[in-house]
Structures are given as C-alpha cells and as structure tokens.
C-alpha cells in the first residue's frame, strides 16, 4: 500500500506547482517522497540579507502524523545560518519540529516558520551549547531531545 506520506506529499507538491511558493522559498528538489530540498531566503531587512540557505526535509512513511526531520544543508554552496537556535551542523532547535509538531503543518508551513525565525533574529550567534552538541549529535536531528530555548528569538 502507498504510505500515507506519499499521498499527502503528492498533494503538497501539487499545491506548490499550482500556487507557487511564498516569497523567498523555492523548491530545489522533490524527486521522491523521502527527501525534499528547499531554499530559504529572508526577505526585507534582516541579519541575513543577501544570504540564501537550503533546507533538507526527510519524511517517514507516517508523515504527517510523525514530524519531518528538518535541517539546514551544509555543502560547497550552502551554509547554516548563524542563529541562536541553529547549530553549526545544520540542526535546528525549534519546538514545531519536535513536541509541538502538528499534522496540519506542511513543508511550506515549516519553511515559513523558519523564515520568520530568522527574520526576527536580533543578533547572529550560535547556540550556547553548540560545540558540545555538534560533537555528539546524531545524523538525524529527530533523534535529539532538544530543550527548547525561549520563543522570543
């Protein structure tokens, strides 16, 4: 049987193709229903003016009941944004990707939330525990039990 994830992702893909992405968000790669890549840019004045980031979404067969694993891509072309909730390995400490995930959220919904997380950043800095976390971090950020920092950053 086709997993519930592929059915739901098909619908999201169709919506992206018919309605387009919100400003600053672009679909880079959605060739299968396991992993999608999107680019993310903060529009207007922000700490990240002129910077373009890329996000990797990994889906389990139970998506959207289970949250996607979302992280910033780091390669020759892309870097992780310097932000108090983003670790230098691209992992993101955001409650909506963990215990505040809701199955009515979507790929684009997550992108928009992360876009506004970056937009509201006042000071570019790494999380205080960055080095310790990155040294022992699992490959999949969903395996991390994040302690969520404040919601104001």
């Amino acid at each position, binding site marked *: *049987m*086709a*997993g*519930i994830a592929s*059915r*739901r992702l098909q*619908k*999201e893909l169709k919506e992206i193709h018919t309605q387009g992405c919100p400003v600053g968000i672009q679909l880079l790669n959605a060739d299968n229903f396991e992993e999608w890549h999107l680019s993310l840019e903060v529009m207007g004045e922000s700490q990240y003016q002129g910077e373009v980031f890329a996000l990797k979404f990994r889906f389990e067969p139970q998506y*959207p*009941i*289970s949250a996607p694993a979302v992280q910033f891509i780091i390669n020759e072309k892309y870097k992780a944004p310097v932000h108090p909730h983003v670790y230098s390995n691209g992992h993101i400490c955001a409650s909506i990707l963990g*215990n*505040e995930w*809701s*199955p*009515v959220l979507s790929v684009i919904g997550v992108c928009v939330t992360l876009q506004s997380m970056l937009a509201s950043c006042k000071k570019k800095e790494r999380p205080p525990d960055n080095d310790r976390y990155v040294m022992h971090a699992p490959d999949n950020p969903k395996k991390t039990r994040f302690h969520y920092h404040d919601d104001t950053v």
Partner: protein
Amino acid sequence: MKVTIKNWNAIAQWRWDIGKEFDETDDEDLCGICRVAYEGCCPRCKMPGDDCPVLWGECGHVYHMHCIMQWIEQQPPNKQNCPMDRKPWITAERKTANTATQQTQAVQS
C-alpha cells in the same frame, strides 16, 4: 410547446453535514491531516462513506476519524490535542448521530 419526458435519471449527491453551507471553492472542506476532502476517504481507506466517517471535536474542527485517531493514539496522554488549536481533543459525540445530508436532484434527459 409540449414536452414529453421520455426518460429520466435520478442522481444523488451526498456530503457530511459539517455544520455549514457547502462551498465548492472553500479549501477548508479538506481534512487538515491528510488534505483529502471530507467526502473522500482517508489514505488508508478505499471507499468513502460510513466506513471512513468524519469526527467533530468539541472545538469545532473536523477530521477523518481515522486521521485524528491515528494522531491522538501516538500522542502522550497529556498532549492529545486538536492539531488545529492544540486544545485537548474531545470528540463531540452528539453530532455524529446526524451524519449525512442528501441532496437529490432529478436530471431530465
């Protein structure tokens, strides 16, 4: 002018009574979890209808029963919330008695 009806076919259309007027352009007639129309069925079912009913929360949000139950069952007991408003999910029992409304129209041919 005199018209003789030689033949007619009845066509019936059904939909769940989700407590508001039907609006074909309204996106909110989709289950927020699977994004399939309420009148369709959840991704695990093959046939829409009584085997794949919709469920109302006390909060007024509606989902396919199978979708919302799958979400609730995998949540810890203190977090069994409506995905839309994150309030504790309480199924509105009284609304499930009166489920389908029917619109029947005769089409002449």
